[in-house]
Structures are given as C-alpha cells and as structure tokens.
C-alpha cells in the first residue's frame, strides 16, 4: 500500500507501549496495557473480544479518553509530531483534520436536532476558513462521493429521517470532509443490516485507498477483518497477542505459527462447509497477560 505521497517512508502513526488506566474508587482498571504498533498508509485491523481495549486504543489516539482515564505511552508520534507533548488544544486541532473516526451506530452518533448537512458542513468549517456557501458546496460534493444520489435533498434531512446505511454514509462524509490522513473505524458496520454492510465497507475502502489514508479498522468480526485489512493486530485484555498479515488468518498452513488466542478465536467461528455439533469454548491463559 505504499503510495507516492509517502515519500519520507515515515509512518503515519508510531505508538510504543500505550497504556490506558482508569482510576476508579475500587482500584485501577487497565484497559490498554502496553500496546505498540506503527501505521503506514495501509488498512490495519484490530480484533479482539469485548473489553479487549480496541476501542480505547482508538480513543487514546484521539485524546478522547473519558474521565477518570489516564493515557500513558513511551512514544506516540503522528507523522513525526509527538502527540504526548501536545496540549489539549493542539490535540483538538488534529481531530477531524488529521485523525478522524467513524463510530458504530449512526442512530446515536449524529446530533438529532441538526440536519445532517449542517453537521457535515460544521466539520469542514472548523478546520477550513470557509464561508457557509463553500462549506455547503463541499458537503454536497462529499455526500456525492459517499454515493448519495440526491445530495441536496439529503442535506436538509434530520438524522431520524435517514436509514442506518445512509446515516453511516453521512458519518463517513462528515469524518472525511476535512481530508484527514488517518481514519479510525470503530466497528463501522456492526449496527447495520448485513445487506448494507458491504456497501458501506466498499465506500470506506474506495475513499481510503483513493486518498492514500491510513485506516485503523476496529472489529470483532474475523471474516471481515481478514477480507478487508492488510495487517491485523489481535488484542486480548489490553495487550497485543500477535500481529499478522490478514491473509494468514485464513491460511491453514500457517496455523502452527499462530498464537493460541488467535487460534481460539478462529476455532470459535462456525464453518458452513464443516458444521460442528458444538463450538469449542475459548480457553484463556492468564499467562498471556503477564
């Protein structure tokens, strides 16, 4: 996935030993414990069970860890800039403009009292000194590029008036209008009908490759990650179990090299060609988190 834009060979994102701790009255909860990875102009999948820290990783990159969470890292660099050294204001300026995120359910992640168009235009106007008219024009173009047929009509609709699939396109338009380099997609299709999931992924994929962006695709769907991503990080309990090329997830011949947790996840997948009476239970080894 190397493109001409990436001349310096510098990774978009370089993270070493990322930790997210929540200081609760009953003790410290470690959501992410020592995650390291680099992201180039590629599609990186992060998979894991619920509570494995995948979403918190995305939030930590955006500086959107809710109170009382604390983020720590040995290194967190965005294109050579040290994210850890930036203040809140500088981090905010990066959001939307350079690093953005598509969230799970458009039913809840769009503001119910604003038209979808004005929400897209807002994302543009925050980062570009643009008038209302220019922002509208850009938003309409953006709606078109997420394959909405009547942008001018959809622009004036409220979130409750659009379907889930259309809502997620609006979300993508809103999050990509300022042309960020990195997009974090946090389970972007989990709340959608199976029939529209692939459409949305196609749109996402086209835009990401067209613009040479880096994509972090957070999911618990192994099939999806395997077919959609270049590289996959498998997380468990806030730690990386292993990192592997996505193609190898399906490759039976490399199974010997796989981490037992990854194998456990793969074994839990029902297979249409070889139906089994009983799916095995995942056996988690406490030693993995040591």
């Amino acid at each position, binding site marked *: 996935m190397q493109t001409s834009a990436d001349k310096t060979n510098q990774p978009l994102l370089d993270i070493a030993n990322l930790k997210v701790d929540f200081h609760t009255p009953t003790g410290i909860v470690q959501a992410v414990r020592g995650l390291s990875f680099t992201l180039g102009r590629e599609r990186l999948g992060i998979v894991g069970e619920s509570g494995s820290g995948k979403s918190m990783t995305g939030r930590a990159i*955006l500086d*959107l860890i809710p109170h009382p969470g604390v983020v720590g890292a040995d290194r967190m660099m965005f294109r050579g800039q040290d994210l850890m050294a930036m203040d809140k204001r500088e981090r*905010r*300026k*990066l*959001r*939307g*403009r350079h690093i*953005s*995120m598509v*969230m*799970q*359910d458009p039913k*809840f*992640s*769009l*503001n*119910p*009292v*604003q038209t979808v168009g004005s929400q897209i235009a*807002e*994302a543009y106007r*925050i*980062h570009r000194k643009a008038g209302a008219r220019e922002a509208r024009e850009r938003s309409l173009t953006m709606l078109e590029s997420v394959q909405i047929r*009547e942008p*001018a*009509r959809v622009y004036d609709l*409220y979130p*409750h008036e659009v379907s889930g699939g259309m809502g997620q396109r609006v*979300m993508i338009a*809103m*999050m990509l209008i*300022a042309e960020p380099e990195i997009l974090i997609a946090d389970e972007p299709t989990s709340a959608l009908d199976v029939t529209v999931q692939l459409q949305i992924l196609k749109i996402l994929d086209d835009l990401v490759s067209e613009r040479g962006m880096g994509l972090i695709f957070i999911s618990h769907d192994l099939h999806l990650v395997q077919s959609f991503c270049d590289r996959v990080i498998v997380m468990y309990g806030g730690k990386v179990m292993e990192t592997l090329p996505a193609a190898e997830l399906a490759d039976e011949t490399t199974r010997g090299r796989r981490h037992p947790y990854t194998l456990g996840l793969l074994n839990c997948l029902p297979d249409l060609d070889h139906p089994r009476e009983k799916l095995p239970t995942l056996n988690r080894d406490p030693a993995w988190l040591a």
Partner: protein
Amino acid sequence: MTAVTQAPPCRASAPGRLGRWGRALSRELTTVVITTFGLLLVTFFIARVVPIDPVLAVVGDRAPADVYEKARLALGLDKPLWHQFAIYVGKVFTGDLGTSVLTSQKVVDDIRTVFPATLELATLGTLIGVVIGVPLGILAAVNQGRWQDQIARVVGLIGYSVPVFWIGLMALLLFYAKLGWVAGPGRISVVWQDIVTTRTGVIMLDAALDGEWEAFWDAFSHLILPAAVLGLLSVAYVSRMTRSFMIGELQQQYVIAARVKGVSEAAVIWRHALRNAAVPLFTVIALSYMHLLEGSVLTETIFAWPGLGRYLTNALLNADMNAVLGGTLVVGVVFIGVNLLTDIIGRLADPRVR
C-alpha cells in the same frame, strides 16, 4: 442539470412539512378546546357542590322567604343543570364572572388589576431562574463532582429548603432596611401612585409607554426583591434539571462524534448538548413559570404585593365564591395557554416530533 432534477423532491417536501404542521396545530387546538370545556365544567360544578348557598350570599341570612325565592329565580337556579351551565358558559365568554362580595366590584375588573401584578412578578422571577439557573446547571454538569458542582448543589438546596417567608423577610431586612438598595413593600411608591395611566396593568410597561422613566425605575426597584426571592426557587429547580439533562446529553455518542470532528469544548456544550437538552428544559421552565403564575401567597403577603395569590386567598377565606371561581378559571386558562405555547416551542426545537 442537477438543479433541475433536484427541484421536484424539494418542492414536494415543502407542502408535506406544512401539512404536518397544520395537522399538529389543529390537534393542539382541539386539545385546547376540550380542556377549556373541562375547566368550565369543573368550575361550574365546584360552585354547585360547595356548601355555600349562592342565594344567601346575595340576600343575607335574614331575608324573608319571598325575597329569597325571588333572588333564586333571578340567579336562574330553578332551571335544569345543563341550562344553568349553558348560561354560565355564555356569561364567561362575554366576560362576566359575577361580582365579588368582598370588593363589591366585578370579578373581571378585580382580576384585571391583580393578575398583571402577579404576571410581572412571575415573569421576572422565571427570567432570573433561567438566566442564572441554566448556566449554573451547565457548569455543574460539565464539572460533575468538582467544586462548581458542589456550589450549584448548595444553591439548589438553599432554594428548595429555605422557606420563602424567612428569606423574604431577611432580604427585606438586608437590602431594604439596612442597605437601602431597593424599595420596600408594595408595587410602586405613593408619589407615583395613579400617575401612570393604566394600559396593560403591568406598571413598568405602562410607565415605559408613558415615558415616565423615574416611575419605571421606582417600580423596578419595588419588583426586583420579591422577584429575586421567587427567582431563587426557580434557579434551584431550573439548575438541578439543567444539570441532569446536560449530564444525560454529554454522555451521548453524538457528543463524542462532535469532539472527533474537532468541535471546541464550548461549542460541544452550547451548540450540541444544550440544543438537545433544551427540548425537555422548555417544559421544565414552563412548569416553573406556571407555578409562579398561580400567584405565590407567601411572597405576595410579605412584600404587600397586590397579586392574584393574595386576592384568591382572601376570597377563599371569605367564601367569596365568584372571586374564587373566576380566579381559578383565569389560572386554568393561563395554564392551558402556557401549555400550548410550550408544545409549540417543543415542536420547533425537536425535529423528531415536528
């Protein structure tokens, strides 16, 4: 080219929205008519049910039987109940609420003088409640658990639990007697009494219309203290509700999405979260306003404020049924009116129920 193809759906949607508006409005109006009818029915039957003989109230205890009978006929009490009700409704709609025994004036005229006094008190009180309560509630919600939240909590607690008659007296003692910052009890100083022509009955408004600015400020300095006392209660209520609505909204996914876009924290709070919290907040504010519009007997008594609350209480204590029922009717109609207004504002604020 695109403009041509897009035009039809736009034009088609405009009458659609208008039509929905029309239907909603007619639904609201039907509700208003039905509730008003119910209100009239209730006030009418209260008058029948209470153990006060309306004839005796007119003729006195010692009237001979023939005088009593004559008065009964004159009042139409021999007619069937539905007929009496029809007469009652007819009278109400022509602005005849009967005569007050206590003031021996028409109840309508009495209410015309006392209601504006309560109106200005309630309006300024609510205004204070909103202007201070909403930001205080937002501050508390944004800084949940920190000192700002604690301060808001204490203000709320004081507003809720300190009795109005005590805080009213203390306020008079401090700001009127000791500091002399404001005027004392009453609506306006004797000097200005009857100088301003009564147009609306709201003295400040009348003074402004007359261009009597000194009278205007005199009325304001009489009004501000009782309004602040009522406002404190309103601040307590509004700030608590604002806090809880805002906490609810700030946890929503769309707030995170706005932050992801790079929206500043101030805009997240004021433009995104508050805009959503405003929908239920309108109802809360309207409820608190309606509560104050009933007239607040204690505050009006302490500040010698000739408002609806005092008028109604006096009427009630003296079994002045015409005044009581007339006042009840007016309060009821105001309730219905404010309710209608709140519904309309709610519809405007929330596209989901439009």
